[in-house]
């Protein structure tokens, strides 16, 4: 590296540290302000009193949906696979439609019957069932914890690039992000989460568009950019992408199911409850569809493709690898910002733009981590502690249990992230890319879809059908994830069955789980109705 650039980058590091420190301090202040504005009680702590206006609702829904997937995972995947991942951006309108089609009805049920968590509504419909409630909580955990891990990992990745050469930079970045996030949620509850989400969402959206614009300019403008992109290898410009992952069935199943899984997960469900009315959700849906999709198509895509131009991929017999200067696919945006922008725009302005992108990336991570940790605390507090362990606990006690849950979940996620970062760890492959972790998480949350559709539209399922369907869906989805071989053993006969099934129908794990979920739900419901007996509460 040119020594002159190294010095400028060091100066840029100081700027980034100062701005990041100020940003993190601001989040803690917002946490405190949220605490001051809150009244005592669970409904205020978890749902901000069901009074969130359309603007905060919109921004917090978007911020919760986006995550580090937006600024690290997606550019990393575009960098690795090419234009095919641009089609994945079209999953966002599907999520937007779900916000109103499902969210409006969830809101109404929550308002009329005082629901706070997804399990409240699901068990309210099918009858109080311990097994069903625990399955719903488990589903929420299986989504939330990997998603929190993604965000903490992103903090580590960010620090690793920012402080390259420093020992334990990754670990320190992960720890700082985790602890600051946990702190302001514990202090201020949903209000703090929503207010910080609102600011973080604006940073995120701005960061996505800024990144695309900056990289396009860095390559010489739109015409030059297009000319360079056209020269990329054919595999970068066609399906199934450079690694062959994005076959049509896989692409279609992800585009259809990933957004649904991302919308009916507990944190978003609680945002529907929190809205002050259907107008808030209607506006959220429209803004989500128009603006968020555009940010991906016109902001993120140029970053990944520009990355391939500036740092050509290495194709070898083992597959495809990032350029040595990049190191890790998911770091392409940060590397491009650090290396190219100061050269293009000069030290000062380039440093400012780079810092803004880093802050936006941090915002992306924290906005999703806080929502999922907050939702997780609601699940544990209301659905386990409040219903099964200490039903007589008062609001104040429950809120404190929620805070302890947030801290415990953060520590668990942090431990797994730091352990998995070691190359010798059995989890290192599982945690390699943010998009992989995100797809793992939504494979579970999407299993709530059959129950949700039945509750909101069909009203034909039974409690036993719901329990059997959800349990089967979770188990099958897990069998088709990359974590299953670690649990079952690579020589298990089940692995062989899964591999053959996947070769026959190459769709995502979420789809496999959903197929068996629906079949089981319908079959058990029909059997139960046919036998015409009432299922006792389990």
């Amino acid at each position, binding site marked *: 590296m040119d020594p002159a650039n190294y010095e400028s980058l060091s100066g840029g590091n100081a700027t980034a540290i100062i701005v990041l420190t100020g940003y993190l301090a601001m989040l803690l202040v917002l946490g405190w302000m949220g605490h001051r504005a809150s009244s005592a009680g669970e409904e205020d702590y978890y749902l901000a009193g069901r009074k969130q206006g359309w603007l905060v609702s919109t921004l917090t829904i978007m911020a919760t949906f986006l995550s580090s997937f937006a600024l690290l995972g997606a550019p990393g995947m575009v960098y690795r696979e090419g234009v095919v991942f641009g089609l994945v951006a079209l999953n966002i309108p599907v999520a937007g439609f779900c916000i109103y089609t499902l969210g409006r009805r969830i809101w109404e049920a929550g308002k009329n019957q005082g629901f706070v968590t997804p399990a409240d509504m699901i068990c309210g419909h099918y009858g109080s069932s311990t097994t069903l409630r625990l399955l719903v909580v488990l589903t929420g955990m299986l989504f939330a914890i990997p998603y929190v891990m993604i965000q903490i990992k992103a903090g580590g990745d960010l620090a690793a690039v920012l402080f390259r050469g420093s020992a334990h930079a990754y670990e320190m970045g992960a720890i700082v992000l985790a602890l600051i996030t946990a702190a302001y949620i514990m202090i201020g509850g949903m209000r703090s989460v929503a207010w910080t989400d609102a600011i973080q969402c604006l940073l995120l959206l701005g960061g996505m568009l800024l990144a695309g614009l900056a990289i396009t300019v860095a390559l010489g403008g739109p015409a030059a950019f297009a000319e360079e992109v*056209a020269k990329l290898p054919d595999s970068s410009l066609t399906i199934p992408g450079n690694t062959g992952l994005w076959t049509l069935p896989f692409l*279609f199943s992800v585009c259809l199911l990933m957004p649904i899984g991302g919308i009916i997960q507990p944190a978003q469900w609680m945002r529907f409850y929190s809205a002050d009315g259907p107008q808030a959700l209607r506006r959220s849906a429209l803004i989500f569809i128009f603006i968020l999709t555009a940010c991906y198509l016109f902001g993120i895509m140029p970053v990944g493709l520009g990355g391939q131009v500036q740092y050509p991929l290495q194709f070898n017999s083992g597959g495809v690898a990032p350029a040595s200067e990049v190191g890790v696919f998911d770091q392409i945006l940060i590397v491009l910002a650090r290396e190219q922008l100061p050269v293009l725009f000069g030290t000062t302005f380039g440093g400012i733009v780079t810092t803004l992108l880093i802050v936006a990336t941090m915002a992306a991570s924290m906005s999703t981590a806080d929502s999922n940790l907050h939702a997780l605390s609601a699940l544990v507090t209301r659905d386990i502690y409040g219903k099964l362990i200490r039903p007589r606990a008062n609001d104040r006690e429950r809120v404190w249990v929620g805070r302890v849950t947030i801290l415990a979940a953060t520590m668990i996620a942090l431990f797994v992230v730091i352990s998995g970062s070691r190359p010798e760890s059995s989890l290192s492959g599982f945690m390699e890319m943010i998009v992989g972790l995100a797809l793992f998480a939504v494979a579970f949350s999407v299993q709530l879809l059959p129950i949700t559709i039945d509750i909101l*539209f069909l009203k034909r399922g039974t409690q036993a059908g719901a329990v059997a369907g959800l349990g089967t869906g979770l188990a099958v989805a897990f069998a088709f994830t990359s974590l299953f071989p670690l649990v079952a053993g690579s020589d298990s006969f089940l692995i062989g069955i899964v591999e053959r099934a996947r070769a026959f129908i190459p769709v995502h794990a979420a789809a496999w789980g959903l197929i068996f979920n629906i079949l089981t739900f319908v079959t058990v419901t029909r059997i139960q109705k046919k036998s015409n007996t009432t299922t006792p509460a389990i």
Partner: protein
Amino acid sequence: MLSSSDKVVKSPQFPKRDPRRRLRRELASLTALFAAMLMATGPGVLLVDRPETFLGLPLIYGWGILWYFIICGIALVTDRYIWRKDSQGDELEDGSC
């Protein structure tokens, strides 16, 4: 005692809506969305799966942008004929879940 019409209509200035008609419209909207997704990310992609460019953009990238605008149109129509009316005061006839 409330009559059945009082239970259904929350805002007297809006006429009572047939929930089945509303559901049919929603289903039509979702069908249009699904069809768009089939074209954009499903078998429709095979029409443009070539390493060529259109107006300087890779074909597949341009395909994604095209279907983004089409889906935005579907969303606008859905909002105009379904969401806006629904959010402005009508209660769902089936009430809560």
